[in-house]
C-alpha cells in the first residue's frame, strides 16, 4: 500500500498514469452525459409547477455539488502536500483550483438563469446562490495568492495554508448564510430544494452527477500533466521523454 502510494507520488509515474486514465474517464463521462441528457431532457416529464424550467437542474445541481467537493479535494491534497511534503499533492491542489472555480461559475450562471422564470429576477439572495458566490471568492483568493509568489514551492505551501483555513470555514459559511436567510423569509422558500423528486426525474440527475465527476477526473488528469510538465521542466526523465518522441 505504502509502496504503491510512493510510486504514485513520483512525477514520471503519475504523468504516465494520468495519460493512461484520461481517455477512459473522458469517454465514459461523455457517454453518461449523453444518456443523462436524454433521460433528463426527453424522458423526464415536465414538472407540474415549474414546467420545463426545472430541466436546468441537470446542469446546476451537479456543478454546485462539484464546486464544493472539488474545494474539499483541493484542501485535502494541499494538506497531504504540506504534512508529508509530497510535491505531487501540491500539483493536484494547483490543478483543482481553476476547475473548481469553473464549476462554481457554472453553478452560479445556471442558478441565475433558473431564477429568472422562478423568481422573475436574474439574481435573488438565496442561501444556496449566496454561499456559492462566497465559494467563488474562496477559489479566486486561492488562485490570486498562488499566482502572487514567484517561487512554486512557496506558492504551494502558502496557498495550502489558505486552503486549509478556507475548508474549516466552509461549513461556517454555509451555516451562517442559511441562518441569515431564514431570518428574512421562511425556510421553505428555497425553490431549488426539491425534497422529494419523482424517480423519472431523479435517475438522470444521479447519472449526470456521476458523469460530471468523471469529467472532472478527466480534466484533472490533463491539468495534473500540465502542472507536472511545468514543475519538472528541468528534470532528466522529462528530457528523455521529449527526446524519445
Amino acid at each position, binding site marked *: 500500500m505504502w509502496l504503491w502510494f510512493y510510486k504514485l507520488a513520483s512525477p514520471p509515474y503519475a504523468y504516465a498514469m494520468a495519460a493512461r486514465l484520461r481517455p477512459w474517464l473522458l469517454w465514459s463521462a461523455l457517454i453518461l452525459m449523453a444518456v443523462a441528457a436524454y433521460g433528463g431532457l426527453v424522458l423526464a416529464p415536465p414538472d407540474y409547477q415549474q414546467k420545463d424550467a426545472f430541466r436546468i437542474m441537470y446542469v446546476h445541481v451537479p456543478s454546485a455539488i462539484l464546486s464544493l467537493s472539488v474545494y474539499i479535494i483541493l484542501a485535502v491534497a494541499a494538506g497531504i502536500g504540506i504534512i508529508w511534503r509530497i510535491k505531487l499533492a501540491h500539483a493536484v491542489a494547483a490543478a483543482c483550483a481553476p476547475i473548481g472555480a469553473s464549476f462554481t461559475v457554472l453553478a452560479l450562471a445556471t442558478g441565475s438563469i433558473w431564477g429568472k422564470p422562478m423568481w422573475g429576477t436574474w439574481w435573488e439572495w438565496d442561501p444556496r446562490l449566496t454561499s456559492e458566490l462566497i465559494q467563488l471568492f474562496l477559489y479566486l483568493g486561492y488562485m490570486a495568492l498562488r499566482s502572487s509568489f*514567484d*517561487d*512554486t*514551492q512557496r506558492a504551494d505551501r502558502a496557498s495550502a495554508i489558505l486552503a486549509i483555513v478556507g475548508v474549516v470555514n466552509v461549513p461556517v459559511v454555509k451555516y451562517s448564510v442559511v441562518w441569515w436567510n431564514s431570518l428574512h423569509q421562511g425556510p421553505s422558500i428555497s425553490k431549488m430544494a426539491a425534497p422529494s423528486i419523482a424517480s423519472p426525474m431523479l435517475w438522470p440527475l444521479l447519472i449526470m452527477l456521476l458523469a460530471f465527476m468523471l469529467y472532472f477526473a478527466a480534466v484533472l488528469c490533463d491539468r495534473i500533466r500540465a502542472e507536472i510538465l511545468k514543475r519538472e521542466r*528541468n528534470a532528466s526523465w522529462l528530457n528523455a521523454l521529449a527526446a524519445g518522441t
Partner: protein
Amino acid sequence: MTQPSGAALEVRRLHLWRGDRHLLRDVSFALQPGELLQVMGQNGVGKTSLLRCVAGLIEPESGEIDWHGAPVRKEREAFHRQLAYLGHVNALKPDLSALENLHYSVRLRRDVERHEMLEMLARLQVSQCADLPARALSAGQKRRVAIARVILSGASLWILDEPITNLDRGGIECVEACMATHLRAGGSILTAAHQSLLTQHARVRVLELQ
C-alpha cells in the same frame, strides 16, 4: 548512520533550489566547538541561503543538519535556543533606543540586567548610543548594537551573515576580539564574509562555495 564525530554542527549533502536554480549542490561540512567556519564565494553563489538554511529559516530540498548528533528538524526549538543569528538586516526598531532594542530581543531568550547590556555596549564602543533611538544611529553603530544582541543571547552557535559590513577599522578589531573570546570559550561561529576574519587565529577554516 550517524557516528558521533564530536562536531557541534554537522551538515551533510545539503541541496537547495531557489525557484529554477539549483543553488546549493551537495554541501557538506562539520563545525567543531571552538571553531570558526568562513563561507566564501562570489555574489549570488548562495552564502546567505546556506546560512539561512542552517539556521532553519529555509527548508532545504534534501540533506541533513545535525546539532550535537541530533537532527535539527526534530528539535528545532532546542536548537534555536543555542543559536544566535545575525542577518543582513539588524532587527532594530527605529523608535526604540539601543538599550530597549536589546532588552526586548535578549529577554525572549534569557533574563538580562541593565548593567550587563551597558557593559556589552561599552565593549563594542557604543556606550554613548545606549539611550538614543535606533533611527539616530549610524549604519556602523546599528551593526554594533546588533552584534551586542548576538553576544548577549548567550548562544553557543553564532551564525553571522556579513557581520562586519559598515564597520570601520576599530569596529572590525572590536568584533574580532569578541569572536575570539567566544571561540576560546568553546563556542562555534559560522559566518559569510568577503574579507578574511581572525587571520591570526588557529581554528579558522574556509568553505569555498562554487
